[in-house]
């Protein structure tokens, strides 16, 4: 919103205005309790500076970082028109909010000096939005001054700014009105005729708290016992609350008092809304009068269309309303919900309807708008809504239960989804089970897939799919049909992921065909399917195919925006595996590490765990075994809290065993080996342990079968056997063995497995098998180029197939536009091309992307 201009009769606080205007200030923090005058001061200051100002008044709904960012960008339109649209175009998909901030700031760097005010920041304390804010502060351009008003210190690196001399702080002690300012304040109320000692006494009793002064002024109007009143007045907020009700609210005319109470349910007010809520056609006049009478009504925009009550005043009004007229409170919320729904603001409507306890209406709106919110990535908001419905409402009808399980699952609350179905099963009659039992199984299959129990998921999924023709959705009651349609629509993705975990390529492809044959319920589902396909190909050692599929997923995620970000974690994990196998370790970290935590928070526990395992493998390859072990121990602990399915436990055991061997902790590795089920992975670990323990002679026989197989396990078996032969003094036999797989390795670029055992397999292939146990050298995807691309140039290259502009690529990589252009120039030269399209084509021919 455009900041409202201050009213003419406010007290101008020159000493504070001067402090705010310090030339080096890049971050201004104004902290103090409610009613200490933060907002009025900053509003007066920005009006005086005359600089373009973006003003965002925060409330708890901004705890959803996506909502916060949308609101921030809308506010920033004031200082950089067109910014909002430009920022969201070609959204990068993953961690969209974070990247959009970077782009917005980059764009703002070209705008004239301006001010961004975040008012009431404490309302989003302890929410994911705070992490976004920290990012915002890191990249804030010099020409932009960020002002934060809050009741608590914001979660920002204030100390760093303080040391750099770039921070201006105004705190509770600064905001207190001194005697002179209190005197100026009371000049606005000439009818009170206060004497100097009255003012001094009131300033003293309120400790300069301006809300206290205002309560006193309102209470004194019409009294003739000023001396007694001043002596009796206790200025602290605890006492003022009661005082306010007795002395201020009760003295208002009935219609004003009723209006104040009835509209207190609104966190922002405009005349038409107040008319609908109160039924009074003179709402606009009443708002004007309330503002004129200093009854704690603050304008929110320059046109004075929207207002809010001062927080403390609003809180007191709501408390009074709840105690005296709870029926009015519910009715007010209900009517506000109606108004917002009719005026295209379903989110606010749902909030009010939930407050009114009108769950039917809220549910009806939610079912119509939940898709929009999920596509927009507003999972935090959806979770908030879902959790506000009482369990008994959810349990009332099977159709609701199915919808809520689906919505909780989509929004990342698997535990809730599972709980609802467990309760539903426990309470179900035989008839209910007959009607909806099959759909419960669909939920259970999807949850099993998400938490990392692929065997259960596949068994259940196959079973329900065979009975899918028993379900005639068109014949179901509408409410039941809604939940059924959503759940069955999600099943193919859940199943593809489960099959991917089991390395079952045929299963993944089968479910991918089902998904593509039907219309996906959400665009992110297609991204998720590509991720599952990429993962299963990567696990089979088909690295080129895996990279292509993962790239497709990333591009699709880019096109489909913020809601697709959760689904991208599968593609990122697959891509990290590809990079690791190709010994591009930094790129593996870059593509995956920053995204794991978010995926786990949003319910993709299994894929996030696979991502953690992949990161541990990368750290191990980087020679940081200690870090890998610490990571695995942390993951074990975190997952144990939720119950770790056997599949994930096995995966963690295998990886830790491998890392322990590399770290030389053979005792612990041996213990872990005892926990691992028989199979190819165990054989490979046994061979590793034998080699590490100086029993290399055991390796050949142990791995004989695996060497005759195919895929990555064959390569690993060959590498380990080759090492055993070389260490036994027979390098020629090792060389012959490695030559058998060198071409296949060369084709996919999968060199890491051999580097781990000390072989430069790429060099061996080039030398036609003459290299033997060569020194480790860095293989790469640059073969065929006279001059290889650097890691940074390869990073830029990866973004060329997308639709991102050069500036946006820079934002993705945290470099300037000029740096990107410089990299592009070098890339074109090295690839011998002149255009972006040709560069992409050439890079694909060379297998660089």
């Amino acid at each position, binding site marked *: 919103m455009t900041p409202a201009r201050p009213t003419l009769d406010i007290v101008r606080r020159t000493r504070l205005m001067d402090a705010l205007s310090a030339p080096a200030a890049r971050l201004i923090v104004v*902290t*103090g*309790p409610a009613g200490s005058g933060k907002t009025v001061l900053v509003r007066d200051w920005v009006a005086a500076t005359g600089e373009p100002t973006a003003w965002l008044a925060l409330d708890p709904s901004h705890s959803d970082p996506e909502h916060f960012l949308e609101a921030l960008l809308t506010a920033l339109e004031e200082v950089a028109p067109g910014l909002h649209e430009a920022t969201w175009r070609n959204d990068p998909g993953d961690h969209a909010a974070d990247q959009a901030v970077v782009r917005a700031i980059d764009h703002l760097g070209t705008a004239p000096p301006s001010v961004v005010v975040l008012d009431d920041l404490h309302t989003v*304390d*302890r929410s994911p939005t*705070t*992490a976004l804010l920290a990012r915002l502060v890191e990249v804030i351009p010099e020409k932009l001054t960020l002002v934060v008003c*809050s*009741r*608590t*210190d*914001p*979660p*920002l*690196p*204030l*100390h*760093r700014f*303080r040391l750099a001399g770039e921070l201006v702080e105004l*705190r*509770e*002690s600064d905001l207190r009105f001194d005697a002179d300012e209190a005197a100026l304040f009371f000049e606005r109320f000439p009818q009170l005729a206060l004497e100097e000692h009255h003012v001094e006494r009131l300033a003293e009793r309120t400790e300069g708290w301006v809300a206290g002064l205002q309560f006193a002024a309102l209470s004194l109007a019409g009294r003739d016992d000023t001396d007694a009143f001043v002596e009796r007045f206790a200025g602290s907020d605890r006492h003022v609350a009661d005082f306010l009700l007795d002395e201020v609210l009760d003295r208002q005319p009935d219609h004003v008092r009723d209006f104040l109470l009835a509209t207190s349910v609104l966190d922002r007010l405009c005349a038409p809304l107040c008319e609908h809520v109160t039924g009074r056609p003179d709402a606009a006049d009443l708002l004007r009068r309330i503002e004129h009478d200093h009854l704690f009504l603050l304008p929110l925009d320059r046109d004075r269309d929207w207002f809010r009550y001062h927080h403390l005043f609003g809180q007191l009004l709501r408390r009074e309303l709840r105690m005296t007229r709870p029926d009015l409170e519910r009715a007010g919320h209900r009517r506000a919900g109606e108004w917002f729904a009719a005026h295209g603001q379903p989110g606010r409507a749902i909030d009010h309807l939930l407050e009114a306890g009108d769950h039917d209406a809220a549910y009806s709106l939610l079912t119509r708008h939940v898709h929009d919110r999920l596509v927009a990535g507003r999972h935090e908001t959806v979770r908030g809504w879902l959790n506000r419905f009482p369990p008994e409402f959810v349990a009332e009808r099977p159709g609701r239960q199915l919808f809520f399980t689906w919505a909780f699952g989509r929004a990342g609350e698997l535990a809730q989804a599972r709980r609802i179905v467990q309760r539903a099963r426990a309470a179900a009659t035989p008839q209910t089970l007959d009607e909806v039992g099959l759909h419960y199984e669909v939920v259970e299959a999807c949850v099993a897939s998400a938490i990392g129990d692929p065997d259960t998921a596949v068994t259940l999924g196959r079973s329900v799919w065979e009975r899918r023709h028993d379900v005639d959705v068109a014949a179901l009651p509408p409410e039941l049909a809604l939940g059924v349609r959503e759940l069955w629509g999600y099943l193919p993705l859940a199943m593809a992921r489960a099959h991917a975990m089991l390395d079952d390529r045929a299963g993944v492809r089968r479910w991918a065909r089902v998904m593509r044959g039907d219309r996906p319920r959400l665009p992110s589902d297609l991204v998720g399917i590509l991720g599952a396909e990429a993962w299963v190909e990567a696990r089979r050692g088909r690295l080129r195919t895996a990279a292509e599929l993962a790239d497709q997923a990333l591009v699709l995620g880019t096109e489909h925006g913020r809601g697709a970000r959760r689904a991208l974690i599968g593609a990122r994990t697959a891509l990290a595996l590809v990079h690791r196998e190709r010994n591009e370790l930094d790129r593996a970290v870059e593509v995956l590490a920053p995204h794991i935590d978010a995926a786990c928070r949003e319910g993709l526990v299994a894929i996030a765990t696979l991502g953690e395992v992949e990161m541990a493998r990368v750290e191990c390859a980087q020679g940081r075994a200690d870090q890998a072990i*610490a990571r695995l*121990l*942390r993951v074990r602990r975190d997952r144990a809290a939720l119950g770790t399915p056997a599949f994930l436990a096995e995966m963690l055991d295998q990886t830790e065993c491998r890392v322990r061997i590399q770290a030389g902790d053979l005792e612990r590795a041996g213990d872990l080996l005892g926990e691992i089920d028989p199979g190819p992975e165990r054989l490979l670990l046994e061979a590793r342990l034998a080699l590490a323990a100086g029993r290399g002679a055991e390796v050949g026989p142990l791995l004989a079968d695996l060497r005759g197989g195919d895929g990555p396990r064959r390569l690993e078996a060959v590498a380990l056997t080759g090492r055993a032969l070389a260490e036994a003094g027979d390098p020629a036999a090792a060389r012959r063995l490695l030559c058998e797989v060198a071409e296949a390795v060369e084709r996919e670029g999968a060199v890491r497995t051999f580097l781990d055992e000390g072989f430069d397999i790429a060099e061996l292939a080039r030398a036609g098998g003459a290299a033997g146990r060569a020194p480790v050298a860095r293989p790469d995807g640059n073969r065929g180029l006279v001059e290889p691309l650097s890691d940074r140039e390869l990073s830029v290259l990866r973004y060329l197939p997308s639709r991102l502009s050069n500036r946006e690529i820079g934002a993705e990589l945290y470099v300037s536009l000029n740096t990107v252009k410089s990299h592009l120039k070098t890339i074109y030269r090295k690839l011998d091309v002149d255009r972006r399209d040709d560069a992409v084509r050439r890079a694909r021919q060379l297998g660089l992307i």
Partner: protein
Amino acid sequence: MPHYDILVRGDPDVRIKLADLAAETGLSWTPVDSGERLTGELVDRAALHGVLDRLFVLGLDLLAVERRSSRHAR
């Protein structure tokens, strides 16, 4: 200015987080038998609540907050 001792539960991951938090708030941090202790002066209630919010967001378990006047601070 009031001086605070803030005690949080110890954990292998806690120290990295506390080191960052201490650097950003100007507090000092020391391991003690019962956990990890953040200590230093905080200008007012807003600053204290800011630190407590940060601890919450970082997922750290708060065990105790003790306020001492400056003259008793070490």
